[in-house]
């Protein structure tokens, strides 16, 4: 068959998705995967972010740590430089591999348990000490917690762990506030009781004294002594009632129950805040709002009472109508967040249909949605979309609701974005975590690889939107968690041996076509081309996308793949699949614009300004020849090209002109020592800062002015010239005043 005939078969496949002829092989069953994933067959042998330790006790409690980072810490501690250290290092790294293998096989245990088991598995007759040494190192671990591998259950585990840590911190702060207020209110009531008539009765006084010295006191006499000449200072009934009410509400609030008092009579049960569907969370949240408002009201009253600021006339009318409508986000942030972890298969369940409603209602609800299916064709086949929006668009739609904290990421990247997830729990409104966890189908790639492929290929890009991070979109929207976010596709190096066994290094983009090749459901959109039928009309998918329509018609896009033997294969894609690729690239471009990358508005503005600048430059060039230019225009050219012209030194503020004949005081230097006022407090007065000035020079004599100047410690009074020429002794006074003019 000639080259043209081969290409026609490939063109036909591209256009129709149907394989005709012998040169096109079905890919299903060939075990193909994108060539860039060739090196990731055995994940247990690699050191990467997973599994993770959900640290529950010890150092870093509440955090999520990668197993490899925990091991690195251990190695730094126990493996010194040198031969002995190297041996230990090898042992510990083998143990890490064992733990990785155990978790990959589905083991769900704590790090300490896994460590012990892995150490046991590594025991060998050749090196009997290894187990003992590794167990000894395990004993030195200063943290422990559940270990979670990157599987479908991991996102819920990680998010719940971070949520629990955030709730612990909140509980601590809330209990500190409430306990402080309870103590303060109790103190007010106790002080009132001590000062009351009942509090001073002999029986009450007797009850306050413990031990065996009761008989040594005459409580009757003590009572008389304490009640005599003491003003009647009972707590007003309205205030007592208010304090008692606030105290009772704070002591019986069910949002954060004191763990030391839990289970005791009168202590309410701790409410639950973790749910698996949106409807239950929304119902609970709404049903508890009145109680929450009551607690906020009690806190506000208690704060005011504790500070002695409660004024019946001002505050009673406000609190009389206080309900949930008066709550502010800052009040609600004190209370627990509701967490909804929707199981992966439940996204389109009727009880989750209200997701967008609870997100837009501003309730303190954080929702984890796990997505298993990204490509729209499958969703369309199912007849409807979960939450009324396509899974891949869910998070981006939520950013438009206003006030919703959004994190979208693939499961493989969740560890890297854990701080953004943790930050969401400090946010007082709603939050959405949209996580892609792979398809989980039989024969599919492991979750980690499938999720990483989704993110690398831009099928499910990572981004975060924090509505309170700042006033601008640039501050709120973050796209930098993606690999090479400025590019259409991330480009990675691929090294392989060619037919002559020579090493070849090639830069390979990873496109959505690569991602779809990983999913057997899209196998019919691909066809493998045997090596002998490769031709120049076949171009890599990313290059094909860059062609114009006319040239693209002469080419067929292909993806470079490897089979089970790691032999390179070319797989061509049909036009329907390439349409999907184009659609996702457009979606990625939109995200890039939101993230400030290739922003079209900015680029248009820049082009316009550049054109203006070039026009101005061109006009300048058209100006008359040098020499005929006016001196003023030539002047800037002689100025230094770089740097600011030296600014003239700031002129020193001029001293105010004063008439030497008038009396005055350097008021700002007055140390308020009262000397001048003691002489004449009508002539000398203090200003608002209690510094002296001459208020009325006619309110006293020239003699008083001169005496004030003489007695002033800091010599800031200037008496001027006499105003009354008939004042006795003027000649002598004028002479004395000369020192202060």
């Amino acid at each position, binding site marked *: 068959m000639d080259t043209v005939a081969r290409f026609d078969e490939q063109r036909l496949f591209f256009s129709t998705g149907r394989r005709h002829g012998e040169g096109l092989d079905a890919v299903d069953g060939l075990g193909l995967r994108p060539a860039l994933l060739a090196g990731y067959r055995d994940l247990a042998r690699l050191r990467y972010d997973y599994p993770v330790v959900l640290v529950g006790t010890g150092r870093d409690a509440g955090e999520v740590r990668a197993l490899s980072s925990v091991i690195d810490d251990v190695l730094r501690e126990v493996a010194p430089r040198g031969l002995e250290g190297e041996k230990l290092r090898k042992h510990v790294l083998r143990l890490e591999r064992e733990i990785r293998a155990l978790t990959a096989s589905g083991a769900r245990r704590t790090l300490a348990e896994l460590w012990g088991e892995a150490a046991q598995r590594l025991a060998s007759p050749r090196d009997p000490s290894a187990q003992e040494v590794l167990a000894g190192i395990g004993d030195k671990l200063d943290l422990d917690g559940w270990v979670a591998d990157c599987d479908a259950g991991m996102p819920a585990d990680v998010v719940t762990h971070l949520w629990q840590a955030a709730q612990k911190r909140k509980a*601590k702060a809330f209990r*500190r506030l409430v*306990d*402080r207020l*309870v*103590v303060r209110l*109790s103190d007010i009531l106790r002080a009132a009781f001590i000062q009351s008539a009942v509090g001073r009765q002999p029986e009450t006084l007797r009850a306050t004294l413990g031990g065996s010295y009761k008989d040594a006191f005459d409580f009757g006499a003590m009572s008389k002594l304490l009640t005599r000449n003491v003003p009647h200072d009972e707590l007003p009934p309205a205030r007592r009632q208010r304090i008692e009410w606030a105290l009772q509400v704070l*002591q019986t609030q069910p949002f954060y129950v*004191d763990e*030391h*008092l839990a289970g*005791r009579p009168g202590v309410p049960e701790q409410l639950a805040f973790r749910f698996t569907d949106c409807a239950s969370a929304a119902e609970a949240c709404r049903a508890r709002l009145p109680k929450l408002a009551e607690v*906020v*009201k009690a*806190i*506000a009253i208690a*704060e*005011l009472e504790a*500070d*002695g*600021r409660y*004024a019946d006339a*001002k*505050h009673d009318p*406000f609190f009389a109508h*206080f309900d949930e409508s*008066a*709550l*502010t*986000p*800052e*009040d609600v942030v004190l209370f627990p967040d509701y967490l909804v972890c929707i199981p992966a298969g439940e996204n389109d369940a009727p009880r989750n249909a209200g997701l967008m409603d609870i997100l837009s209602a501003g309730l303190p609800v954080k929702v984890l949605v796990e997505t298993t299916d990204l490509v729209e064709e499958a969703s369309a086949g199912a007849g409807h979309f979960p939450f009324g929006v396509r899974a891949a668009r869910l998070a981006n739609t939520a950013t438009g609701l206003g006030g919703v904290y959004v994190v979208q990421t693939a499961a493989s990247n969740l560890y890297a974005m854990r701080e953004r997830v943790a930050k969401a729990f400090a946010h007082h409104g709603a939050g959405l975590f949209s996580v892609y966890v792979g398809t989980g189908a039989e024969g599919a790639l492991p979750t980690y690889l499938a999720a990483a492929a989704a993110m690398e290929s831009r099928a499910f890009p990572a981004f975060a939107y924090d509505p309170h991070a700042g006033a601008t979109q640039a501050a709120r929207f973050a796209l930098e968690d993606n690999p090479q976010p400025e590019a259409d596709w991330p480009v990675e190096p691929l090294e392989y041996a060619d037919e002559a066994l020579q090493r070849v290094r090639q830069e390979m983009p990873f496109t959505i076509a690569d991602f779809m090749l990983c999913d057997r459901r899209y196998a019919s959109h691909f066809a493998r081309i045997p090596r002998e039928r490769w031709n120049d009309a076949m171009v890599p998918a990313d290059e094909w996308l860059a062609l114009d329509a006319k040239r693209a018609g002469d080419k067929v896009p292909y993806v470079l793949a490897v089979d089970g033997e790691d032999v390179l294969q070319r797989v061509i894609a049909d036009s329907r699949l390439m349409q999907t690729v184009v659609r996702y690239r457009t979606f990625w471009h939109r995200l890039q614009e939101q993230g400030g990358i290739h922003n079209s508005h900015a680029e248009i503005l820049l082009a316009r300004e550049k054109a203006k600048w070039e026009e101005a430059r061109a006009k300048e060039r058209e100006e008359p020849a040098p020499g005929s230019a006016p001196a003023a225009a030539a002047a800037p050219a002689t100025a230094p090209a770089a740097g600011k012209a030296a600014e003239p030194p700031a002129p*020193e*503020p001029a*001293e105010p002109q004063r008439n030497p004949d008038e009396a005055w005081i350097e008021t*700002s*230097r*007055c*140390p*308020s*020592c*009262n*000397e001048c006022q*003691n002489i004449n407090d009508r002539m000398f007065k203090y200003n*608002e*800062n*209690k*510094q002296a000035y001459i208020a009325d020079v006619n309110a006293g004599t020239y003699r008083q002015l001169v005496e004030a100047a003489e*007695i002033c*410690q*800091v*010599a800031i009074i200037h008496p001027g010239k006499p105003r009354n020429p008939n004042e006795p002794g003027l000649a002598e006074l004028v002479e004395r005043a000369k020192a202060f003019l």
Partner: protein
Amino acid sequence: MTMPVTQCLIKLHEAHHQLEDYQGGVPRWCSGCGDNAILTAVQRLCRDEDLAPERTVFVSGIGCSSRFPHYMKTYGFHGIHGRAFPIAQGVKMARPDLAVFVNTGDGDCCSIGAAHWIHAIRYNMNLTVILHDNQVYGLTKKQASPTSPIGMKSNTTPRGSYLEAMNPLTVTLGVTNVSFVAQAVDWIPELLYDIIRKAYLHRGFSFVRIIQRCPEWLPKQFEPWLHDPGKTLLLTHRDGLAISPELARTYRNQIEHDPLDMNRAREIASATDPIPVGILYRNPSVPCYEDLHGVGEVRTAEQVRAGLEAEFDKVTVWPQDDGARAAA
């Protein structure tokens, strides 16, 4: 931007104060005493920072300056000689929400109260300390104090004092955990106010030594400095003192000093002529004692009871246990 209901209500009915709201009794200090300038500066600070009088406390020991609480219309505690610091620390521990000031003299602080002074610096509790240093025991009519300069004649040193004066600045700067040290003089009210304000705004033990005149017993002591602005050295820094153009015109002797530079601060503090005025050392990262000890350890009566019962239960022998054991 919204705020919690409580803050909203407090803001809504916030009271603003005037200087007169802080003026207590008429000062009984001698005419021309430097304490007046300090009193005015502190009253201005209270007004400008809108400190609620009922949430402000002045604690003092014994001496002329220690009459200070009487002249402030706030809470006050005129304590016993040398014990202003422990009293103020106790107030702060019991009521960390109060603004607590300490007014102490050179005798009260640097002599009988020296032990408390050293440890108060080390504890770095959030207190504003004003050392009224007139270099003499004035209330008891002129005896030499630890800060009296060598050769000063007084009723206890008729031939002149034999010892070099103690320098309260270098002593303070030498104590562990020191976090704020400044020096002011009572005759430059603008800087006096600014320094006291900076001290108040610093969170920690803010120590301000104020060199003040005693017109009654040492009337000539500071005359050279009073009449020659060149003998005063102003310490400037971009986040240091606010020096007005008028003042800058009079006091031209200025150097830039970074308040985080401890070594330079000690050098400057050692100088007595010219008198350095400004912030010598400020380090906001030194932890406060109240942040280290008992943070959030509030216990309600129920919690205390539950805790005690849990402890008692560990050692309680219940009668039925005895019975059960006997039966066994």
